[in-house]
């Protein structure tokens, strides 16, 4: 399979303190596949993903090559980069509640984004957005678009972001812990929507999570990060069944202990 994204020697550091946050990371994303990045908080998962879209705050600087479809993102002008953001590289954030401007109805962000990337008429954009929202089980899309973020639930907002991604049809979707802020039932639904999304638009995906259960369900390959370094990577099943690194073994075993405990309480597996 061809690589759609190749990250080579990515380094991210704080310009004030000089502290290195990401040290020499290299990894590839195959076209149409899903790469999960796992690791505990502060291991550099989010910073890595934001670095791919050059979205880190101005106090962080980055070097290395980020080759997307033959172009080095690190060398693009801001204008060229802006055209790629959303249209080619689409990000879905952890907390839907804070991802939309709290003073505007959610429709505003959707319309502004679509108007930025397509020459559609207002009506056409509206129709496409509505059908995408319906496909992620958001009934009454018109009503939802006229609601403020605080009037909707986290799961709904998460699905609105997914619906926007469906309309944008990006090459890569970067999902930054999209299930962490949700309750278990919404998590289940959102993960399903992510799986559908990949099947539907055939995009590649980078999925950050510390929920190994979700990762096992959705990812083809896994990258394990610790203290800003990639310590292990490979096929999902391989990581789960035969991790080489101590830290990965520890992550997998704690996860197993947790789910075994859960199964025992629920009376399964006897």
């Amino acid at each position, binding site marked *: 399979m061809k690589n759609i994204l190749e990250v080579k020697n990515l380094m991210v550091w704080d310009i004030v303190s000089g502290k290195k946050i990401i040290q020499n990371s290299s990894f590839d994303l195959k076209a149409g596949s899903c790469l999960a990045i796992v690791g505990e908080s502060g291991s550099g998962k989010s910073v890595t993903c934001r670095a791919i879209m050059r*979205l880190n705050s101005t106090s962080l600087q980055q070097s290395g090559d980020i080759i997307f479809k033959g172009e080095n993102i690190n060398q693009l002008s801001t204008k060229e980069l802006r055209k790629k953001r*959303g249209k080619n*590289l689409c990000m879905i*954030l952890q907390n839907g509640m804070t991802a939309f401007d709290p003073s505007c109805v959610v429709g505003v962000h959707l319309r502004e984004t679509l108007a*930025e990337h397509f020459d559609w008429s207002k009506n056409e954009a509206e129709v496409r957005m509505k059908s995408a929202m319906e496909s992620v089980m958001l009934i009454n899309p018109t009503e939802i678009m006229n609601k403020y973020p605080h009037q909707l639930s986290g799961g709904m907002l998460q699905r609105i972001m997914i619906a926007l991604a469906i309309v944008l049809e990006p090459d890569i979707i970067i999902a930054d812990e999209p299930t962490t802020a949700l309750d278990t039932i919404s998590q289940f639904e959102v993960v399903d929507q992510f799986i559908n999304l990949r099947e539907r638009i055939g995009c590649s995906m980078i999925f950050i999570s510390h929920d190994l259960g979700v990762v096992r369900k959705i990812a083809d390959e896994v990258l394990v990060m610790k203290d800003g370094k990639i310590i292990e990577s490979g096929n999902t099943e391989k990581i789960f069944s035969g991790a080489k690194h101590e830290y990965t073994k520890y992550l997998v075993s704690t996860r197993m202990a947790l789910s075994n405990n859960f199964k025992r309480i629920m009376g399964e597996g006897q």
Partner: protein
Amino acid sequence: MGSYIVKRILVSVPLLLIISFLTFVLINLSPLDPAEVVLQAQGVPEITEELLEQTKEELGLDKPFILRYFDWFISSLQLDFGESYINGKPVWSLIGPAFLNTLKLTLISSIAIIFMSILLGVTCALKEGQVIDKSIRGFSFVLTAMPSYWLATIMIWYVSVKLDLLPTSGMVSYSSYILPVIVITISYAGIYFRNIRSSMLNNLNEDYVLYGRASGLPEKKITMHILRNSLQVSISIFGMAIPIILGSTVVIENVFAWPGLGSLSVKAILGRDFPIIQAYVLILAAAFVLFNTISDIINAFMNPKLRNDL
């Protein structure tokens, strides 16, 4: 939104009642006998008990306190604040034009303050830590630290006397506004723009900014979203600033000989002209309530979460 506006206006009615009552009580707590003040002002050589009783009756001061309050309150609603103890003219004929003059100065200054605060606040936030941010903050710090009467005097000396560009004082033409407005703007905008700057910087780190950028929105649009959210704090502050300026132009009005409320109220206080003081306090209090209500309504318009709070 409509019902919020109605509710918000209704809430301010009891507030005004309480304020008017307190105003009346406080002025009447004064140990001075108003009848005596009137007689002294009229230059009566010998004040006898009989004369005092007679004057009290004329002024209606012999009636019970509550009755006097209601009389005063009802006529105040019709802008009839009684007559000046000093020169016997109706209070409104004195305070009305003065209020209008001060209001003109205040509103023009407020527009200048809001404009400058937003301009400087946004510039500094977008250029955080850069030379322009640091120099604006440093320069404004020095200007804000200068007492306004001193700044006003320097400006009159340099601009009006030395360069002979603008009138030194009074309210003769549009050019009379320039210097007082500049002095008032400097002392307030220098404080308020910091507010806008810091709330914009807080908003810059919000997720919606990240998501906007990740969605490929241009910086201009993102800045508008940030501004809309940052201004909410500032609107309440601006709303309060207008009546504060209205009440504190005393210094500026005296330096520039502006025929406004400030000069009038100082004269009234020194002459113990109770009806004018009462009217002055009531008008200012009403202005506070009014602008507070307006800023709350604008805030509710900008921040949907507030609409259900009442």
